[in-house]
């Protein structure tokens, strides 16, 4: 199993999509920084100072932590899932397309171990991606925007319903928590992509099917007409990862939705293993 893990990891880091995902995330951070700067440029100066009289009484609202928070929040729903789905979707279907799946399956390693080792590598990749993205945002925020406390206001991000503040060190810890909770939430997408990877012949189809399913639920969940259906979407449960940024983490809710995501992950993996175990590999 360890040897298999090492092999899968080597395959992953040698793939082009691995490098591409990190480059794309870096480009996104650069874009966010540009947006942040141009926004601040438009709003800065006397006008802002006057407006802030009634509210922040703190000119350091826009700091590196705020930048990192917004960047992470915006990218988590739509950008990072693409790379997770792409990598997980290629795991089995990619081997099939390359013609190596049959060969791997005749080796003295069980199909279950093969699939689990692939999933573990995808999980590690997901963590790496999230941690890299958060770390990069914090670094860019520190270097280009500045440091300070993380102030949270109602309305923006729908995160809190009354003003709150996280002190700098505490906020940094929350970003560390977010790398874990975010990874856990994204594993649902990874598990779905693995399932499609087993079911589909091509990695592209597996990736598109995963993203289509995710985006459909994600979009429908935001349409008011379907508000009553929202609690039944896995995308709603995935949102739990953001709770770590609340001034007081709602642990009960956090554990509830975290458990639901876990049930999705392990349940889908079970189904995937059951299908893969019985699948007749002809290519």
């Amino acid at each position, binding site marked *: 199993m360890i040897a298999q893990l090492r092999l899968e990891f080597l395959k992953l880091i040698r793939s082009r999509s691995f490098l591409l995902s990190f480059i794309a995330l870096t480009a996104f951070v650069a874009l966010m920084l540009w947006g942040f700067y141009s926004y601040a440029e438009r709003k800065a100066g006397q006008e802002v100072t006057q407006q802030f009289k*009634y509210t922040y009484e703190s000119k350091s609202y826009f700091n590196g932590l705020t930048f990192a928070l917004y960047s992470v929040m915006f990218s988590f729903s739509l950008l990072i899932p693409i790379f997770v789905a792409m990598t997980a979707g290629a795991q089995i279907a990619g081997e099939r397309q390359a013609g190596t799946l049959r060969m791997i399956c005749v080796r003295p390693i069980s199909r279950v171990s093969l699939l689990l080792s692939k999933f573990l590598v995808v999980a590690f990749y997901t963590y790496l991606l999230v941690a890299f993205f958060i770390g990069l945002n914090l670094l860019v925020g520190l270097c280009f925007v500045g440091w300070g406390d993380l102030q949270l206001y109602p*309305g923006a991000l729908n995160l809190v319903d009354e003003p709150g503040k996280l002190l700098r060190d505490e906020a940094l810890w929350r970003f560390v928590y977010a790398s874990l909770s975010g990874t856990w939430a994204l594993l649902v997408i990874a598990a779905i992509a693995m399932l499609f990877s087993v079911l589909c012949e091509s990695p592209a189809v597996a990736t598109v099917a995963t993203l289509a399913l995710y985006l459909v639920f994600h979009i429908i969940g935001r349409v008011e007409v379907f508000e009553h259906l929202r609690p039944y979407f896995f995308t709603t449960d995935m949102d739990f990862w953001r709770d770590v940024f609340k001034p007081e983490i709602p642990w009960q809710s956090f554990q509830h939705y975290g458990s639901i995501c876990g049930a999705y992950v392990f349940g889908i993996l079970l189904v995937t293993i059951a299908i893969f175990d019985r699948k007749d590999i002809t290519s």
Partner: protein
Amino acid sequence: MWAKILLTALCLLMIWGAVRFDPSRPRSLLASKASDGPHLRLITWNIGYAELEDDSRAHTSDLHGVAETILSNDPDAVALQELTGPEQLRVLLGYLQGRYRGAVALPGNSDRVDAVLVKDRDARFENLPADGKYAIAAAFHLRPQSPAVVLVSAHADAFSATRRRTFTGEMIDWTRGRLRGSIVLIGGDFNFELDAKDESHFYTDNVKNDSEAYSYVLKYFRDLGRDAGYTAVNDRRIDYVFGPPETVFLHRAEVLRSAGAGKMDHWPLLVEVAL
């Protein structure tokens, strides 16, 4: 086989966790307690119409229904918004059978005025300038020995978040001067759009301004109607009663959705606190 058993166990463990941990976080009425001092019941109500109508201010023909709602709920004080002027107040006080006294704010740069009604015969009324228009405050006593209560009736701009922010800031600055020695409550239609459906709205000035204005209010006051739900059509919670964070105990916050007449687009928000 072991892997399948492990995955099944983990899946079951997660399902157990989902059942075990309750996601609902019922927000109890903050700082409420079973027995306490005299109760103060307030209503805030924008009795105007939706912007789709020719005249979106209050219609005199609806005032009888407004009076019935007030009489049936028997509040100690009422904050009303979007009256056309003193004449409508006079008609309303007539329907209220002389049980309330009231005053309307100066019009300022607006074509509609706020009003405040109180039961106390000795109530004093004061205009409160903010952003070129006026809110109106009534200072009264619930009982002769109880502390003075100041209720402000306010209406922030419906179309400009910047103006809402300026209005709110100036009004709160005014009330801060009254916080010592009296219990200040603010009732009104602030038009804050805080429930941003689209998260990226952070970068629009409207949500930013409203969020910041609301935050400024909460520096000194508590949002007493927070758990009562939406107060206007399209599920908007834009009518608020703000009260001091510590000196009053919230007992009830309810939107009276059965109330209303004509084409009003707001429901009255009733808040009951113990002093």
